[in-house]
């Protein structure tokens, strides 16, 4: 399946935005997501590697002899890499973990179903995401066999090790060895960082 690479699924969807929605307001709201304490409300969903939200409401002018071209609708583009094999896992995670954020963003899109724990409503929401999905023919990721949790732990170790090297450069090798053992013990005992926590 062209959306899967290792244990990571790549989803891209185009969601038509309602005509009465002011896209500049929606853009401002998207930018305000950065103010979340952990970088994004999507950080609460621990299967999400990356996510991108873009508003497409105009086409660039290509210059002479091209003409001005227009879209029949503005669109919200949502692209997301997550740990999983089907978009049902992503949609379920979004609907159960950040329902308010979902309503705030997707609520401005055409024909979006309600967010509800009801199985029928959930199935409708999943089907909505499938209908808006763009066909993927090639999906590349740099670490296909690695989960979000594993990557976060690796990043924490990289950071801890770099700090260790900077702190102890030039010291006697026996001291460096002991300090490294201490650092390693502390690291392996520490919990993994959560997304966006540093």
């Amino acid at each position, binding site marked *: 399946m062209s959306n899967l690479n290792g244990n990571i699924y790549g989803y891209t969807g185009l969601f038509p935005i309602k005509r009465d929605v002011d896209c500049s307001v929606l853009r401002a709201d998207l930018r305000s997501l950065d103010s979340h304490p952990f970088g994004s409300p999507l950080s609460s969903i621990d299967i999400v590697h990356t996510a991108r939200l873009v508003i497409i409401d105009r086409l660039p002018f290509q210059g002479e002899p091209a003409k001005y071209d227009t879209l029949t609708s503005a669109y919200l583009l949502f692209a997301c890499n997550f740990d999983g094999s089907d978009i049902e896992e992503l949609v379920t995670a979004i609907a159960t973990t950040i329902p308010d954020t979902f309503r705030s963003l997707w609520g401005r899109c055409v024909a979006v179903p309600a967010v509800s724990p009801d199985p029928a409503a959930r199935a409708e929401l999943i089907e909505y995401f499938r209908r808006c999905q763009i066909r993927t023919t090639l999906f590349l990721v740099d670490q296909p066999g690695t989960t979000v949790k594993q990557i976060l732990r690796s990043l924490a170790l990289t950071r801890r090790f770099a700090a260790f*090297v900077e702190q102890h*450069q030039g010291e006697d090798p026996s001291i460096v060895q002991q300090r490294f053992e201490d650092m390693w013990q502390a690291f392996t005992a520490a919990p993994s960082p959560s997304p966006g926590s540093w």
Partner: protein
Amino acid sequence: MSAMLELHDIQGNILREYGSLHQARFIFFRTRSAVQGRRYIEALLPTITTAKSGDEIRAATNIAFTFAGLRAFGLPTSSLVSFPTAFQDGMRARALLLGDVEESDPRSWDRPWRSEALHFMVMVYAASRMELEQTCRKVVQLAPDEIEELRPHQEAEAIFANGNRSLRIEHFGFAEGLSNPHIDFLANGMRQFRAGDVDGRDHRMVALGEFILGYPDEGSEIGAMPVPHAFSRNGTYLVVRKLHQHVARFRHFIEQQATLLQRIIPGTDPTYLAAKMIGRWPDGTPLAKVTSSAITGHISNEFGYADDPEGALCPLGAHIRRANPRDSFGFDERLVNRHRLIRRGITYGAPLPVGSPDDHMPRGLLFLVFNADIERQFEFVQRQWINDGDKFRQGNDRDPILGSHDGLGRMVIPGDEREGRPPFFCTGIPRFVTAKGGDYFFAPSLTGLRLMASSGVRTT
């Protein structure tokens, strides 16, 4: 591929170094009337220096316009919308992309850069103070009442190392302006014209279209040009940045870090550390060719990094290796040559004597580069090579000299296994350079200026 070049139609400071014209003044203007603005261009036209000028000139004058300026001069909308997004936005609007945050935030820029009002800039260069004043006086006297000079103008003057007039240095004490692309073009049937220094006999020449609109670029295509093409051809984009250099801060950091460095690598000194951060010895000798400060004096651009893949000679994250990776990325330099810049910087402000405390006086570099594509060239270098290190296996470490550091900056100075030299990790790098102004300009050809003056810029 070589291209015929109309030197008489191209503004002089694009392809000429003006090496003997070491005084400069940048005068900023706004026009309140498109009609008066056009009259001013017509009056200035005979004074504009072209690339046909020789080394004998004693003064030079050139001109460039912001997007707001082109609009104020009455260019039709159909032409304005065909200019690239970056140019239309202007540098201030792209501050986040460029790393102009905190100390470099445009809200803290000097006047007139922090206002919206700048329409065009006249650049005057001269061999002496007297000739500079004479030329500037004429520029200002020609301006009608509707042309408002925005104060303050920007003075600039080259600094020379130990009175050696052939070697310009910047305020940190290092030779500057040594590396400019060797451009592939034909003039009068012979390759006798060079834009700055030769970039090395073993290195590919760079296509003219990377720097002048209307010619084939490194992709063998004529890149997108604003319309009408008669207006934009032989023109180019000019990026200007006023970069304040924190000289006392730089010297203090080097001295401090060198104390630790000397414990780890005996025999080194502060000059060694600074050279490793920059990539050249102070006199311009490249580290890639000469590893000891005792045998400098080999100022050269004939070098590459293919024989130094781990950065044992010139660190992977050193300033000049980031600004121009040369043959680091293989593919016969084709990748690098898509991001080359013609650099025409000049220092401003009085040098801070060695050993003096910070006097908080303005001093730095007026960074001027010419390129045919602002996003693919200047902005790419700034974002991908200066303010990020991924391409150089440096993670997200930034350029040690130019990077937007926050006091936590780092740089790895690789060791050398052959010599048994351990690596050294520079830490706590503060910001050494703060942006105090800048913008994107369009430098039209002489034909383009004549069309502007005669209201001849039309798309239908």
